[in-house]
Every structure is written in structure tokens, then in C-alpha cells.
């Protein structure tokens, strides 16, 4: 039964509010599926290691390109390619930590120094990928499927699987943090590294496991971004600040906040794409980040009150 939906163009605001809302729900959920896991991984990395890793965006790129290598060059099915890519990206993350960041963290340099170093690491990863694959965009070799209506949503089977994987993995990470020994160790190290060390926790081991989890999540995120769009060397760098926007909206060291922040940011981005202008959808994520930083720097789940006075009385404040 054709109800005249299939022929409508994407992002048309003239069709009436109902169809736009339908687009918003579908694309918002898809964007959420690409953003949630990397932002959760970045959140765990920042929570445990206490510095902002700007190489994370390029680790996302590396995950996507490793899956691309398996999928296009070795003709492996995309699902298995995803698993191999998770393993290899986790290895890459552990390698980076052991070679570059471990010595600096032991030398007790500040978080800002580590941030600058991670910038250099990201530059190296990005350009190695550029040499290997060139600047042109790629796509995964996946079977063509037809999108179906599911209530208000409009998804292909692949996209449904992506959203399910995203939600299940996120729930798995939450359960891991709450109920397993590793989760307890990670939370303890995050709260007080020196006390954990005195109580006999091997901090180095916790860092290693954190990197494995964070980079595995980055690989999943990279593959999902590649499934929805194209894969190119600059994709992670573009996504990095969006990931930070998700984290800051939800509160930077709060894993639940990271996922909720990803949901809010994804819907804000897609709403901008539908009602304002598609090129500015990333900008809307940044603006959301600035707004949250201005009125409530600890994120929407933070304990402090909303500071409206910064919004108006910035010229009078003496602090």
C-alpha cells in the first residue's frame, strides 16, 4: 500500500511536521548509533587516565580503515571484519599507550602536555592512513537491502542491527562497570589513583584494559560511521569535537551521561539538518557544547545549579 511516502525527498520541511518528525526519529537514532559507543569509549579513557586524548578521533578512523582492509581487500564479511577490526584497533591502542603515553604519565606531566602529545600521535595515525589508502572516500562492500517502515521509523536491516548492537554493547559496558571486578578496579582508579595503588591495584593493568575497551568501542563507532557515510582519512578528526560535545553535554566523566549526551547531540544535529541547514548540523553540536559549558560546565547530570548569571552578567563578574 503506497501512502505516498517513498517518493518524498529527504530533509523536506514543506511536507508537514509529521514526516519531518519521522525523519528526525530515524536519522537521529542512526546518528546516535554512530556516536554513542565512541563517546562512551572516550569517556572511559578520560575517566581513568585523566587527560583528553585528541588521538581518539584518529583511532576511530583507524578502526574504520582496518575493517575496510578486511572487507574490501580480503573479502571478509562485514560482521567478521568488524570483530577483527575491534581486536586490531585495541592492539593499536595498547601499543600507543605503552610506547607514548605510559612514560609521560609516569613522569607526572600535566594533562595539557598529554593533550598536545596526543595531537601529534593523531597527526601520525591520520597521515599513515592517508599514505595507505589515499584521500578518496571508500564504502564498505555490503549487500544492498531495502529500507522498511517499522512504526514511525524507516530503516534498512543493517541499520536495525547497528542500533541493536549499539544499545546492547552500551548496556554491557554499564553492567561491566557496575558488577565485574574490572569495572570496580576502573572506578577505583578513576576516583583515586594513588589510593588504588596503595591498596594493591595494578594501575598499569587497569590502564591497559581501559585502552582495550576504549579502542574497541572506537572501532565499532568507526565502522558504523563508515556504514552510514563514507570512509576517508579525515573522518575521525571531524567526529572528534562532536564526541567531545556528547561528553560535555552529559558530564565528562559520567558513562551514562556520555550515552545520553550522544542521544541529545544526535537529535540536535538531525533537527538542525531538517529544519535549519544540513551543512550546519555539526555546528549545532558545537553550539550545544558551548551552551552547556556556559551555563553548567559539569554537564546536564552535574550537581551544580544552572548558572544563568554568566549568560547575562559576564561584564560585571570580578572572578
Amino acid at each position: 500500500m503506497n501512502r505516498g511516502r517513498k517518493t518524498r525527498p529527504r530533509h523536506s520541511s514543506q511536507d508537514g511536521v509529521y514526516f519531518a518528525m519521522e525523519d528526525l526519529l530515524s536519522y537521529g537514532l542512526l546518528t546516535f548509533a554512530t556516536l554513542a559507543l565512541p563517546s562512551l569509549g572516550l569517556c572511559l579513557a578520560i575517566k581513568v587516565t585523566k587527560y583528553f586524548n585528541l588521538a581518539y578521533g584518529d583511532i576511530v578512523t583507524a578502526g574504520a580503515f582496518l575493517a575496510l582492509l578486511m572487507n574490501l581487500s580480503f573479502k571478509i564479511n562485514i560482521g567478521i571484519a568488524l570483530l577483527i577490526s575491534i581486536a586490531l584497533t585495541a592492539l593499536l591502542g595498547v601499543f600507543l599507550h605503552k610506547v607514548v603515553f605510559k612514560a609521560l604519565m609516569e613522569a607526572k606531566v600535566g594533562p595539557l602536555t598529554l593533550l598536545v602529545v596526543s595531537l601529534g600521535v593523531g597527526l601520525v595515525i591520520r597521515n599513515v592512513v592517508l599514505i595507505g589508502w589515499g584521500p578518496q572516500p571508500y564504502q564498505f562492500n555490503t549487500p544492498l537491502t531495502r529500507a522498511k517502515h517499522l512504526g514511525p521509523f524507516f530503516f534498512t536491516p543493517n541499520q536495525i542491527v547497528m542500533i541493536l548492537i549499539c544499545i546492547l554493547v552500551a548496556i554491557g559496558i554499564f553492567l561491566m562497570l557496575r558488577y565485574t571486578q574490572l569495572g570496580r578496579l576502573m572506578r577505583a582508579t578513576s576516583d583515586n589513583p594513588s589510593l588504588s595503588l596503595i591498596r594493591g591495584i595494578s594501575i598499569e593493568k587497569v590502564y591497559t584494559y581501559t585502552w582495550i575497551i576504549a579502542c574497541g568501542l572506537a572501532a565499532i563507532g568507526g565502522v558504523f560511521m563508515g556504514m552510514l557515510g563514507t570512509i576517508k582519512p579525515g573522518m575521525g578528526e571531524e567526529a572528534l569535537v562532536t564526541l567531545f560535545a556528547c561528553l560535555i553535554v552529559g558530564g565528562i566523566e559520567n558513562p551514562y551521561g556520555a550515552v545520553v549526551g550522544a542521544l541529545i547531540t544526535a537529535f540536535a544535529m538531525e533537527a538542525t539538518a531538517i529544519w535549519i541547514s544540513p551543512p550546519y548540523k555539526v555546528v549545532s553540536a558545537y553550539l550545544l557544547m558551548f551552551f552547556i559549558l556556559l551555563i553548567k560546565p559539569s554537564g546536564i547530570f552535574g550537581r551544580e545549579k544552572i548558572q544563568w548569571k554568566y549568560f547575562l552578567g559576564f561584564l560585571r563578574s570580578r572572578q
Partner: protein
Amino acid sequence: MEILSWILTIATIVAIYSIMGLALNVHFGYTNLPNFGIAGFFAVGAYASAILTAPHRFREMEIFAGFPGGVAGRIEAPFIVGLLAAIVLAGVVGLIIGIPLLRLREDYLAVASIGIAQTIYYVAVNELWLTTGSAGIRLIPMPTGNRYLYFLLVLLLLAIAYWVVNRFYSTPIGRVWRGVREDEVITASLGKSIFRSRMSAWIAGCSIMGAAGCLWAHYSMAIQPGEFVPTTTFLVWIFVIVGGLRNNKGILLGAILIMGFFEQGTRFLPAIGAPYIMPAIRLIIIGVLLVVFVRFRPQGVLPERHKKIEAHIR
């Protein structure tokens, strides 16, 4: 004659980037404001000057080619107006951006300023009426008409920027900035507003970056958004860190070393394979260099020289 022209090209680019490095020294070296949005302020300065000074002929060409004629080419102001507009506009943009940003801790500021630069980039790509989009603005006049004279002009502005930034080191406001860098609580207890002193340093640095952008626009005579990507920012950061953070001579040295040799010096080496490989190798070397320097010599080639207290009191 060709080799002289090539050296002149390198020297001009190095001088323009040195101005940005000096501005970053005001931000990060003096006041500990890690600005990762240098490309954004560079773009604001470049576009401000380009839009004001582009000739009427550019707008006529755009309309002839079927584009809607934008703001660029309506005014055709002289160079000095463009330069002043670049400085003022970059400062105003810095002021507006600084209100939410300068309350943040350093690492949040770093990430948020990357977002600022990206926002400015997206505006430059998408606002066709203002910037003519990714086609960019062409036919920007070179004020001296001659590249040799223009190099002298750039050197003059570099000398002025160097003098100003060096003066900031020991003037009262510069001392407050360094106080904010070392310990905010003590500086606040002496009655100085942290936010206001951070803001003054931020605006000063942003204006100098805007001036560098203006010089770049008039040197290359055509600008497009692709020049104002984060890589520009990272290059400035890397030569500032390698050359010597907080030391203006070190920044000039770092600009000559990194920008001169790595960015331009490999131009005559034989290209290996595809055209994108050589720049990628350069950037890999620069990234490794950054990591090695921060690990083994964090103060850079020339470290900060601490003046004796008597030099300040006089």
C-alpha cells in the same frame, strides 16, 4: 633568479607564520590559554581583509559565471583598511568567543577552541553571500604590487608584532598574565580579575592572528576555506613547542626550522608515488618530532629566560 624567488616565498610564509607563533605565545606562553583554534582567527583576518579589498572585477566575474554576486568586491577598500578591519574583527570575534571559553579549565578550553575553528570553517564553506564558499575569493590585490616590497612589508609587521609581544612580557598587564599562568589564586588575592586579564591576553593574541591572516590573504592573492583547516593550527603549535615556548626568539627559530625546512624545504625532492604522499610523510615527521620534543625537551630549543626582579622594577 628562480632560486631567489623561491627563498623569498619561503621567507614570506615563515614570517607570516612567525606572527601567528608570537600570538600563540601571548595565549599559551604568557597566560596559559591553549588556543587550538588559531586557524579560525587566521581565517577571520584573511576573509575580513579579502572581502573588503577584493576588486569590483572579481564580483563582475562571479556574476558573469552565474553565481550571485556577494559582498566581496563591493567595497574595494585600500590595504590599510583591510588590515585594520582584520585586526579589529579578529579581536571582536575573540571577545565574543572568549566569554564562554575563558572560564574553562585549560584542557576544556583546548577542545572547545578546536570547535570554534571548525565552526568558522563551516561558515566560510557555506555562507556563499559572504565568502563565495569553497571557490574562495580571488584577485585580492597585493598592496605593494611587487613581491620583494611585500616581503619587506611583512617583515616590518613581524618586527612590530615582535616588539609588541616582547613589550607585553614586562609591562604591567603582561606580568599579570604571567601571574595568572603561574597561580590564579595568588593573582586573584592581589585584586586582579582572572577573567579580565585572560580576556585581554586572548583579544591581543586573536588580533595578532587576524593581522597574520590579512597578510596571508594579500600574499597568496586568493584564499579558500581549505587553507584554514586544523592542520594549520597544529603546525603553529608544533613550531612553537619545538622552538621554545615562552621565548620569542625561540619561536622565530622554530618557525624557520619547521616551516622553512619541513614545509618548504622538501619541495625539490623527487615525489614518491601519488602527489599526496610527500606532504603526508612531512606531517608524520612533524608529529613524531612533536612527541619526541615534549618527551625529552619540553622547554624547546630556546627555553624561557627569567629576568631578574630588578629588571621589572627599574
